[in-house]
């Protein structure tokens, strides 16, 4: 089972660079998720690992050996496509057996007509048929082995695609948004099944998704990509709690991290939007910053007193166990009117029992202990030393 190393990997399409100097290492048995918005280059990365897309420059190494020039079949990988890419004219059994059959093909078996005959002959061999039965049983596909893909549901097709990847026992599993075509319930079920599969087979999984829930729940490590540039590499906990920049802060988390433009003067913090003060432990030097607060660090109604900000409720999403309150800050000179509709909405995660009407004035309590600081110009995270309580409501 190889360690994957990306050494300054770059991908161009004509004049457009879709992957910029990608450097990363994927350890053995890791469940690595490539996370990013559509068009960020994550699928291209996966295809380059598979050998389906050529690397423009840089090196991809498996256990220190460059594999740039190797064909996909020489890399000992399996690929689960977003669209499943099953062979529609073959039964489920033939679909699952196909990689095993190809492994056993000799050069002359590829002669047209001979290949069709040999495919049938090899599929009947006990070592192939038994392995297919074993994998089908593992994925609960035994009853569907004689069906064609068109006679299967989306979830069953997805299982066949996974079974086809599993059957050859590859070193690396590459999965390209395999759950995106499933409904929400089935997706949650398959998330758990793929995680369990990773535990069972103990191989390296590289999983591409734009869905942060999939990334957070399945990954042992996440690489966040945006416009072909690595934004952050870390465990789900690190990425959630300590986002490397404002992009990661906004992309990971639902609802996203609240980002407030603030000004620090003499250790006192004020929200740039309306001048409201905030008491925050450990602040950087004087200047403009972006302050990041997760929705769970805001509570409504606030207990009052220190470190609260005023707002008006704009959205209320009751999710059963919890409610997401979206609020806007009042304008600089609070005259009792609502802020403009296009003013940014901030979110607080509160218990499901809390009820508010749209437009209600609320006092939001801020727990600044988990606050993140970002440079206003670059958006990069700033590391501050031990927290001390300074400043206060003026």
């Amino acid at each position, binding site marked *: 089972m190889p360690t994957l190393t990306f050494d300054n990997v770059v991908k161009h399409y004509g004049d457009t660079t879709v992957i910029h100097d990608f450097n990363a290492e994927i350890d053995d048995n890791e469940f690595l998720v490539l996370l990013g918005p559509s068009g960020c280059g994550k699928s291209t990365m996966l295809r380059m690992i*598979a050998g*389906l897309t050529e690397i423009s420059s840089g090196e991809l190494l498996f256990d220190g050996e460059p594999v740039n020039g190797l*064909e*996909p*079949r020489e890399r000992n*990988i*399996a*690929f689960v*496509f977003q*669209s*499943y*890419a*099953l*062979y*529609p*004219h073959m039964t489920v059994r033939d679909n699952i057996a*196909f*990689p095993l059959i*190809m*492994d056993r*093909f000799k050069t002359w078996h*590829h002669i*047209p*007509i001979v*290949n*069709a005959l040999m*495919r049938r002959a090899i599929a009947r061999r006990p070592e192939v048929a038994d392995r297919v039965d074993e994998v089908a049983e593992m994925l609960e596909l035994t009853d569907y082995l004689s069906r*064609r*893909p*068109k*006679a*299967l549901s*989306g979830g069953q*097709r997805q299982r066949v695609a996974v079974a*086809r990847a599993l059957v*050859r026992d590859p070193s690396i599993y590459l999965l390209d948004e395999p759950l995106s*075509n499933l409904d929400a319930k089935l997706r949650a079920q398959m998330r758990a099944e793929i995680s369990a599969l990773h535990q069972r087979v103990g191989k390296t999984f590289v999983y591409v998704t734009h869905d942060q829930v999939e990334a957070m729940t399945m990954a042992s490590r996440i690489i966040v990509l945006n416009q072909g540039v690595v934004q952050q590499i870390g465990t789900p906990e690190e990425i959630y709690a300590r986002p490397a920049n404002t992009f990661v802060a906004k992309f990971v988390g639902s609802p996203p991290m609240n980002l407030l433009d603030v000004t620090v003067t003499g250790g006192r913090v004020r929200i740039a939007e309306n001048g409201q003060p905030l008491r925050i432990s450990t602040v950087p030097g004087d200047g403009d910053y972006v302050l990041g607060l997760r929705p769970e660090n805001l509570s409504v109604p606030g207990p009052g007193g220190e470190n609260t900000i005023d707002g008006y409720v704009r959205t209320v999403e009751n999710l059963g166990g919890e409610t997401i309150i979206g609020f806007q800050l009042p304008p600089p000179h609070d005259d009792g009117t609502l802020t403009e509709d296009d003013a940014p909405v901030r979110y607080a995660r509160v218990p499901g029992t809390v009820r508010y009407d749209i437009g209600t004035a609320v006092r939001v309590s801020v727990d600044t202990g988990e606050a993140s600081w970002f440079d206003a110009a670059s958006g990069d995270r700033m590391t501050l030393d031990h927290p001390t309580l300074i400043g206060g409501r003026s």
Partner: protein
Amino acid sequence: MTFGRILGRAIRVVTLAIFIVFAGFPVYWMLSTAFSTDAELYQTGQSWWPRLDRVGDIPGKLADVPIASWLMNSGVIAVGTTLLSLMLAVLAAYALSRFKFHGKGFAGFLLFSTQMLPEALLVVPLFSIFVTLGLLNSLHGLVLANTAFTMPISVFIIKAAIDRIPYEIEESARVDGCPRWSQLSLIVMPLILPSLAAAAVINFFDGWNEFLFANTFIADQDKWPASVGLVSFIGQYGTPLASVISAAILFTLPALIFFLIVQRKIVSGLTAGAVKG
């Protein structure tokens, strides 16, 4: 059932019946003519009903001509044209559909341009080429000439079918260890069977109906295809119509059987379920 629906249904049935009569009457009349005698055809008038009791007379009417040999020659040309044309067309269509290369658009235009010129215009240049290559008076020469004209049509039919196959299916095969050649034969070709069948029908009929080149390039009577053989019935002083039509029926039957076999394959929806739609 309301009067309106009955009327609507009646109109549909009558309209269909008229179309069937228009389409089927020539075939019916051909049968009736084949079972008539020359005397009936030229003097007393033929029967409205085919005299099926005279089916045994047909071999006698065709005893003087090598009809079996002519049909065999037509078969060689038709099958040869179909196989060669499809083989070349599949490769060309796959290349045009799946590969990027310089001059791809021009290659497509070149293929298309072969359809711009009428075959008759090319008889003389082709004759000259055939003389040079020693292909005159040979059936394989006719196969080559027909393939040159039918292959481009097949390329466009097959390319359109390959274009509709999601390329992930081939990529998946590639990951599974299937080289390009087997991707084409094991994955792509089974998925484009309906289009292959449609192209096969066009190629087969073009080869089966071959007349112009055969009439020009084939000198030996025993190498004539049936189309040229049929024309040879027309004499300076008379034409044995009943014999001509009897031969024409024999000429039609193999083509009809081929079509009936192949048309079963012309079904759509084979790629359904391959990828999530």
